């Protein structure tokens, strides 16, 4: 699905020859240190960033050949940083996800889709509240609901659990897993927390300096050697009952 992607910002190579196959119904997580290219990879898949080389395919079709508005009906993107100020109600915000479908009026079907999306993430009771008044966890849910209202096949999430407490982290990731299974979504998420990533992903991609350093199941990717090489951190890996990465110290 992603083939030989290279992205350069000036002289800096953000991504360098990345190729991945993504599967529907599965959660693929992208891990790696800050600046490794996680966000850029997500933006490439979504067509927000145009790679200087390489192609992204969706069902065998080059996404450059798909109009942005058509693509928006098939891929939802939950950004890393929600806007600081959004003077809209929760309903209005989720309804933005219908933008690829509507020209002026929200039809009955659009409204039903928005309501279902809110129900799917459990925020229907917040419908008339203002986005600005919500907590971080609630905002994250609103943004996921917005992406769901796009009725996508592919759901891209950039750090969906950053700035959330552990309860909300688990809630959001359980929700994402349920959506992936129920709606057979292809989920790709960039995530920093290796332990959460290992719990909730089927496939893990470890990026280093814009290249894929390791790819496979969390147990295959999260080894002390890989983590030392990529993060420069000495860790112990516990595997019972869940895989747990315990940081020991920074490699000098």
């Amino acid at each position: 699905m992603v083939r030989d992607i290279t992205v350069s910002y000036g002289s800096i190579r953000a991504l360098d020859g990345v190729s991945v196959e993504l599967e529907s119904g599965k959660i693929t997580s992208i891990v790696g240190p800050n600046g490794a290219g996680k966000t850029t990879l997500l933006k490439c898949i979504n067509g927000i960033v145009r790679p200087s080389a390489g192609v992204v395919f969706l069902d065998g079709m080059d996404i450059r050949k798909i109009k942005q508005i058509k693509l928006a009906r098939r891929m939802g993107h939950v950004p890393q940083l929600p806007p600081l100020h959004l003077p809209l109600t929760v309903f209005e915000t989720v309804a933005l996800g219908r933008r690829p479908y509507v020209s002026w009026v929200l039809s009955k079907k659009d409204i039903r889709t928005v309501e279902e999306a809110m129900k799917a993430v459990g925020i229907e009771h917040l419908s008339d509240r203002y986005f600005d008044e919500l907590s971080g966890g609630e905002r994250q849910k609103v943004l996921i609901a917005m992406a769901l209202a796009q009725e996508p096949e592919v759901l891209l999430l950039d750090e969906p659990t950053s700035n959330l407490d552990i309860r909300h982290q688990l809630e959001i990731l359980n929700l994402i897993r349920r959506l992936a299974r129920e709606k057979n979504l292809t989920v790709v998420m960039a995530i920093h927390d290796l332990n959460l990533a290992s719990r909730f992903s089927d496939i893990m991609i470890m990026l280093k300096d814009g290249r894929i350093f390791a790819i496979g199941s969390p147990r295959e990717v999260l080894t002390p050697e890989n983590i030392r090489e990529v993060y420069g951190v000495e860790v112990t890996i516990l595997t019972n009952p869940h895989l747990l990465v315990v940081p020991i110290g920074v490699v000098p």
Partner: protein
Amino acid sequence: MSKRRVFVLMLLVLALPLIVFISMSVGVLPVSPLGLILASLSPNHEVNPVAWAVIWYLRLPRALMAVMAGAVLAIAGVVLQGSLRNPLVSPFTLGVSSGASFGAALAIVLGVGIVGMGAYLIMANAFVFALLATFITLGIARLRGMTAESVILAGIAVMYMFSAGVTLLQYVAREWELTELVYWLMGDLSKASWHRLRYTVLAVIVCIPLFKFAWDLNVLMMGDDAAKSLGTDPSMTRVACACLSALAVSIVVCMTGPIGFIGLMAPHLARLVVGSDHRFLMPTSALIGALLLSTADLVARTIMMPLELPVGVVTAFFGVPLFVHLLLRTRREIWR
């Protein structure tokens, strides 16, 4: 929410003919509303030829001009604030007013211009330079990828450039030219006529396609990247909104001179009553802009009767308290 919005819109629509009606009856020559109706019903000059002439040739075109110019300035304000994601943007941020002022100054002081003579030379010049300023702004902004910040900064730079030009022309102007220029720069509606109203209608027509961007402006609130992933092209939206609104505002400003604050105020007032969904915000802003300018013009005409104040002065007096109020509140509340 939705019902309230419709109610607000209806209320504003009803208020509009009322203010036009009042504008027509108040003035140096008071006309009773009944006499007014009779006068407008009978075009044969039997009722009272003077009253009829005053209403038909002076007050009605002027009242309609205020309505349309106010609506155009407000719509331009709302789409520019939306597409540039900045609550302090006004239709003049792109350099329209300073460009127009410079064009007018050229015609008034040096007598040079593109086409026409006299009042039309000033108008044509103001129009051409207003558009020129916009294109320079967008041209500079394009070099920085047409981001919201680049458009605003380029606009401010262009504004200073043309303002300096105006100052220079004021410096070299002779006394009577200076008087005319200063008067032009204040902005007023006294030159309204049926003939000029035609151009104003054109400006309103130019604004109509802007409504097509309501959803694009809504998703732009989420930021450029999110807008893209929802199928909106941010720079295309910005360019289209900037060009159309600059064209419409240029048409208005070349006839009225720069009338400030309507384009800044009306969108904020509209946000307070109907929220930020541009599908409702745009028509509401237009109506509020129309009402504001009509009211301001009514005040300008009558407050020191028989002397007339330039309407630009009155809108600024309305505007400054609101502007201070905006600055004193947190940003979050401004956008509410």
